[in-house]
């Protein structure tokens, strides 16, 4: 890597199911202002902007151009990146490349969504092929559900294993994250009793849809040294869009794109023993079931070891590798922002700025994004510009 890339500021809105007091532009501006405050910078310091959301939710074409009032992008270089559910992390990676290229020094990444303005599932359904898939593909939930039935069948995982993930993430949000959308303490009994949406995924296993925005300031080395006393360094990035037909993914017990993206990011960053080397993880877990069956793709456990890992308590706050101190996607899901929030939360952790969510002494973190057709992004972030 020719130019090191850091994160010097993170901002987000207080996420809600429906923002009645501000429209999209204002939502974006809140996140941007908070990111600039966090970095102690002004809009004038920003060299370029990358923004992303999923068009069909707000029904606005050319959001890069529309958002200028809210993003502060007037007379600045701006572009839009959109890749479905991974949009937030793809936007983060795009900002990373802006800086890594040496063409821009201080770049603002913005992810946002006003899901309250959409029929989320109907919009997501349009990603599937109109002739061969759309009739039966149930948005995001169906394919996730099918994947877990395959994992349960192959490795003996249970619905209770997934319920533990749901309890962990929801309760972390309730206890530690004032920005989270859902902040209710729940129990495994409540999860198991909640109605099925698509077997085996139940209501309390599934992420909400949220209005919210996140903004992150990425910076080159010079800017990093000038502004942040302890920047977060982006050590590795990986993106993988391995499948395009849902039928190719249904029935797979694992997530090959996450494996591939992790491999790429880990290699770049020098991660060889992820479970030991990571101090904290902010993972894009859209359904609790994914929190069981995707862990091995990240190398956090052996094949089929998801249930063991979850039941061990290692991923709880205070455990060996806390996952989702923020509450993750199960607590907050403004889709275009969700992947970027994972990067932002991971950065806050290694910067020591995660406040109530802070995992003490966190130095190395992993953030993931998920979306599209079983697509994945992985980002490795550290308080050190390189791992020893």
């Amino acid at each position, binding site marked *: 890597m020719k130019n090191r890339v850091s994160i010097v500021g993170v901002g987000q809105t207080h996420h809600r199911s429906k923002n009645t007091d501000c429209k999209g532009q204002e939502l974006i501006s809140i996140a941007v202002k908070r990111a600039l405050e966090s970095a102690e910078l002004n809009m004038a310091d920003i060299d370029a902007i990358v923004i992303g959301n999923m068009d069909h939710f707000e029904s606005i074409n050319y959001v890069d151009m529309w958002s200028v009032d809210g993003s502060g992008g007037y007379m600045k270089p701006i*572009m839009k990146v959109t890749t479905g559910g991974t949009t937030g992390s793809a936007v983060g990676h795009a900002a990373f490349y802006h800086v890594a290229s040496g063409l821009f020094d201080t770049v603002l990444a913005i992810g946002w969504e006003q899901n309250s303005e959409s029929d989320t599932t109907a919009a997501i359904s349009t990603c599937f092929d109109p002739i061969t898939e759309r009739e039966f593909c149930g948005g995001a939930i169906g394919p996730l559900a099918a994947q877990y039935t395959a994992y349960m069948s192959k490795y003996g995982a249970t619905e209770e294993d997934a319920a533990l993930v749901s309890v962990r993430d929801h309760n972390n949000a309730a206890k530690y994250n004032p920005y989270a959308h859902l902040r209710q303490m729940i129990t495994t009994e409540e999860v198991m009793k909640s109605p099925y949406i698509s077997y085996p995924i139940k209501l309390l296993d599934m992420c909400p849809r949220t209005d919210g925005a996140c903004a992150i300031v990425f910076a080159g080395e010079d800017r990093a040294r000038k502004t942040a006393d302890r920047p977060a360094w982006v050590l590795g990035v990986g993106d993988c869009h391995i499948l*395009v037909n849902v039928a190719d993914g249904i029935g797979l017990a694992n997530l090959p794109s996450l494996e591939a993206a992790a491999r790429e990011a880990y290699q770049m960053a020098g991660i060889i023993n992820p479970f030991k080397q990571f101090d904290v993880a902010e993972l894009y877990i859209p359904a609790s079931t994914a929190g069981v069956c995707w862990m091995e793709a990240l190398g956090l456990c052996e094949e089929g070891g998801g249930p063991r890992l979850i039941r061990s308590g290692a991923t709880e706050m205070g455990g060996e590798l806390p996952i989702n101190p923020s509450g993750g996607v199960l607590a907050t899901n403004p889709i275009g922002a969700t992947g970027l929030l994972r990067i932002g939360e991971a950065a806050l952790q290694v910067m020591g700025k995660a406040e109530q969510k802070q995992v003490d002494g966190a130095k190395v973190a992993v953030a993931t994004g998920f979306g599209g057709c079983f697509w994945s992004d992985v980002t490795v972030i550290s308080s050190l510009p390189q791992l020893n």
Partner: protein
Amino acid sequence: MGKVGIIGVAQTKYRRYNPASHAEMAYQVTREALEDAGLTIEDMDNTVTVCNDFWDGRTISCMTITEATGSHRVPTTNVEGDGTYGALMGAMRILSGLHKVTLVVAQSKLSEGIPSVITNAMFDPVYERVLGVDAINSSALQMRSYMSKYGVTEEQCAKVSVKNHRNAKANPYAHLPLDITVEDVLKSRVLADPIKLLDASPVSDGACAIIMAEEETAKKRYSKPIWVKGIGHCADAYHLGDRDLAEVDALASAARRAYKMAGIKNPMKEIDVAEVYDAFSYMELMWMEGLGLCGRGEAGAMVDSGLTELGGALPINPSGGVLSAHAVQVAGLARIAEAVLQLRGEANARQVEGARVALAHGIEGACGQGHCVFVLEN
């Protein structure tokens, strides 16, 4: 700036209706760009797709061309904007040192949508859409504003259309090669005053692919890499009423950045050929001014003088430009592809002799709110 070379290009023939699907068009240009570069899909270590959910009528529209572009095999991302922005992302991924060869593919099928509805969706949902604003009638406001401010005439705009449609006759990819006169343009059906049918670009299906490579790979694998010397992009205010539609400040900013990177001090003298995004005839005049090829309000006179004709001092849009072929998202990338052909000396009947430095340009949003400028050299 580090070195990025363009070593492969391909375009479909632009047409009103291409029976091929999004994926088939993307596959065609991917295969042909690879052939052009003498490479295989295995040589691509990352890709950038350029797809827009509105134009494609599906969410996560890049899914449709993932396999066709080999994007399932390697790290990939999707830029939603004009193809020039996709090429910018492709260049940045190489300049990072993390990737060596980027395939950039843009496609769209306007035949499957209703452009006025799709472009109406650019405007504010609460305050503006109800007025029925779309790309054509908003551009009409800009054309009128520009003409009023600077005394540019409909005839001068018409000359751009005449020039570009005639140039298109030498471009096998062009959708609308035409032999027309200024009078034909002036008499053509009014779409939204003062924009007439022959002042407007057509609605085209099409795709374009380019292959960008870092220096060593570019030099090793290809005898005539075309180097990216400068890139700039910039966006103006969003609401039409917040802008002076007759001005081109965002373009001037983008051009300044690209010229600085490329070491260009006198664009009119140093640029040999320019491919600019003339979605409407008047736009070519405005963009000439924003690019600093002449002073503000002086482009009409420049067109009168014939300087921008194929044999002139600075030929603009020898390909026929966007007026002759307009696949949205694609057209800016096509400007880059055409500039590459020019600098390779492979532009055949539309060749600008001895071209060494080329400019390629794309726009984004309503009335050219955003601009992206590339300076290329052989």
